[in-house]
């Protein structure tokens, strides 16, 4: 037990002495939390909007005014012909183009029916879908108003039915993306730091030759491993703490559930990550290899965690695959506890899977760590 103390002491000294590393461990992640949490939004706003108005009537101007007034659209330009406009779209200066043909107003009055054409840059398919929804809303609203103006009498023989849908957004009534992203990004940063540091730590001693010196000492393999990994566990917990404080102070992220429960879960979650780091260390000879493998897993874990894109939308095999993703569990737990106020029994399935994961990885890691070749 005393021996572990010496190793921990040594590790902390080395970490805190490396002046180049400290900001990377503590400042960089928190800076990213503050900045990047604002970036991760699917909300579609400031849509680059342009129009071609060949009608130049009161109605066409009124319709354009509607787009101008909408908070979603940012009217960038008007063009005289389609060629010019599509050029702008190719350049990426415009993403939605409204084309009002000649006789727009005349057709509406005379034939009681008129056409409009809208072109949407659909490379980002999801955004295009949302944009088309907004456009429809504006046009429908305009249409309704026009209709009321033009209909001098109610044509009352049959009244259309109307089904009203009332959306209600639970746990995040204002659809604030930051509420959603801050806990998630915090989880990513905690995971990345602990995995990278632990993954490279032992292999670094291998590379500079001190590991051999340690191996000829009577130290037990368990003592050595615990002593090595404990400092990173502490750093992970520390980062979580600072991150939570920032989340509360700056983003005012709701914390409905028990923070104690969150720490309880995190303390086991970090064992999964540290075990993984150790396993990577054992199977590599250089820091370069270790880092590449860690990078490979982290990119997969991040993009398949359900944080940025929903897991339900993935094909079945990929959904099954995410069961092996520890970040997924952490993201789920953080959201459940902080945003929904979930209790111990609610997160029990995630907790059990995490514990099993931690157990398997650490057994594998300790077993594959060899003092003797």
């Amino acid at each position, binding site marked *: 037990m005393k021996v572990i103390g010496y190793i921990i002491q040594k590790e902390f000294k080395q970490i805190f002495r*490396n002046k180049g*590393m400290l900001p990377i*461990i503590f400042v960089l992640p928190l800076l990213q939390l503050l900045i*990047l949490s604002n*970036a*991760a*939004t*699917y*909300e579609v*706003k*400031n849509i680059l909007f342009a129009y071609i108005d060949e009608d130049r009537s009161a109605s066409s101007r009124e319709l354009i005014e509607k787009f101008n007034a909408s908070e979603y659209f940012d009217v960038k330009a008007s063009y005289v012909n389609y060629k010019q406009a599509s050029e702008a779209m190719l350049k*990426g200066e415009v993403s939605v183009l409204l084309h009002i043909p000649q006789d727009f107003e005349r057709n509406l009055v005379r034939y*009681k029916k008129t*056409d*409009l*054409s*809208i*072109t949407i*840059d659909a490379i*980002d*398919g*999801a955004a295009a*879908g949302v944009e*088309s929804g907004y*456009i429809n809303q504006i046009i429908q609203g305009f249409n309704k108003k*026009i209709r009321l103006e033009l209909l001098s009498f109610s*044509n009352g023989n049959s*009244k259309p*039915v109307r*089904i*009203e*849908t*009332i959306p*209600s*957004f*639970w746990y995040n009534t204002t*659809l604030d993306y930051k509420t*959603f992203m801050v806990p998630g990004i915090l989880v990513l940063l905690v995971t*990345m*730091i602990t995995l990278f540091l632990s993954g490279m730590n032992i292999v*670094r001693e291998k590379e500079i030759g001190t590991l051999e010196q340690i191996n000829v000492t009577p130290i037990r393999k368990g003592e050595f491993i615990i002593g090595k990994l404990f400092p990173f566990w502490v750093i992970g917990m520390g980062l979580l703490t600072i991150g939570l404080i920032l989340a509360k102070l700056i983003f005012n992220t709701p914390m409905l559930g028990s923070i104690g429960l969150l720490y309880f879960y995190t303390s086991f979650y970090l064992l999964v990550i540290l075990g993984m780091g150790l396993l990577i260390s054992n199977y590599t000879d250089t*820091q370069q*290899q270790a*880092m*590449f*493998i860690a*990078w490979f897993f*982290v990119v997969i874990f991040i*993009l398949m965690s*359900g944080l*940025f*894109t*929903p897991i*339900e*939308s993935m094909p079945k095999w*990929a959904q099954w695959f995410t069961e092996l993703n520890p970040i997924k569990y952490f993201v789920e737990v953080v959201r*459940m506890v902080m945003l*929904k*106020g979930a209790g111990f029994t*609610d997160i029990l399935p995630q907790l059990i899977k995490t514990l099993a994961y931690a157990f398997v990885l650490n057994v594998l890691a300790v077993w594959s760590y060899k003092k003797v070749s």
Partner: protein
Amino acid sequence: MKRFLGFVRKEFYHIFRDKRSLFILFGMPVAQILLFGFAITNEINNVDIAVLNQSKDVNTQEITQKIDASKYFTIKRFLTSEKEIEEAFKKGDIKAVINFEKDFSEHLIKEGQGSIQILTDATDPNTASAITNYISSIIQSYQQQQNQGVQMDYQIHPEVRMVYNPELKSVFMFVPGVMTIILMLVSAMMTSISITREKELGTMEILLVSPLSSFQVIVGKVVPYIFLSMINAAIIIFLGITVFKMPIAGNLILLGLESVLFIITSLALGILISTMVKTQQTAMMISLMGLMLPVILLSGFIFPISSMPPPLQVISNIVPAKWFITIAKGIMLKGVGLGYLLKETLILIGMTVFFIALSIKKYKIRLE
């Protein structure tokens, strides 16, 4: 020149001898692009939802069937009281509940108006608003069916055209993004680490006292990685075309050249990192921690830049990946030529020159 080529050859040997790293270098990008191409999508598919039907009449059953029949939703269960909603959300196995008011049909027939509540678990606001939109539009189309026969006058008929990606496939959006991430991180990381590694092992000094100029030493170290990254880019584009049916609307050669430019930009960034740090560990942490999330989040890979707060839109301009993603999407999906991508291309060239100039300056300071 001969000496220089000999040196480059040595660097190639280094890389190709290390079978494990080589496997990682080529195997991982392939695995990632395949995995992400299939799995990363922000389309809504088969979302599990629940229904709370308090009227159980013809209309509500028809609407329920219509929703269940769509590919977007699967009705996982039926709730019997409002109390159960909270429980279901907390458990997290359903994302939305459709709540029909009491006597829905009666209201609809007598008053011409019925209401349906759509409750979503908005801890994920992205999915929640998408779900709400999709359910609303299914209900709208049901409403239209009911209103057939009712004459609608003064109708404006908008015709919407989705260009460049008419099927709204998210894979078209993500393949250029994944390609960018892989090229950027692999190139920047590999160079920064392999240079700091020589520094740490002390072999850098030996190279510097050799008759090669320090510029040649650096270029020699970087050349093999340019080739490796080019092969990676080619593999990714090939998989994009064959597996994901990405259209290459523009010129493939231009895409190749732009990729080489972007690879060089990333390598220059890697060199810059290596001039600033002493140990491999620091180099790695900077290239991993410093680059990974900004490249994913600020490049327009997943989230639209135009929706970000203005300060972030400004910051995103310094992320090289943003410009390359614009270029890649432009060539692949829009089919534009260099004329349209001149600004982006010049910015990447400018960044490359800046990184290299800064590296040389830092390097000189250290030697004095």
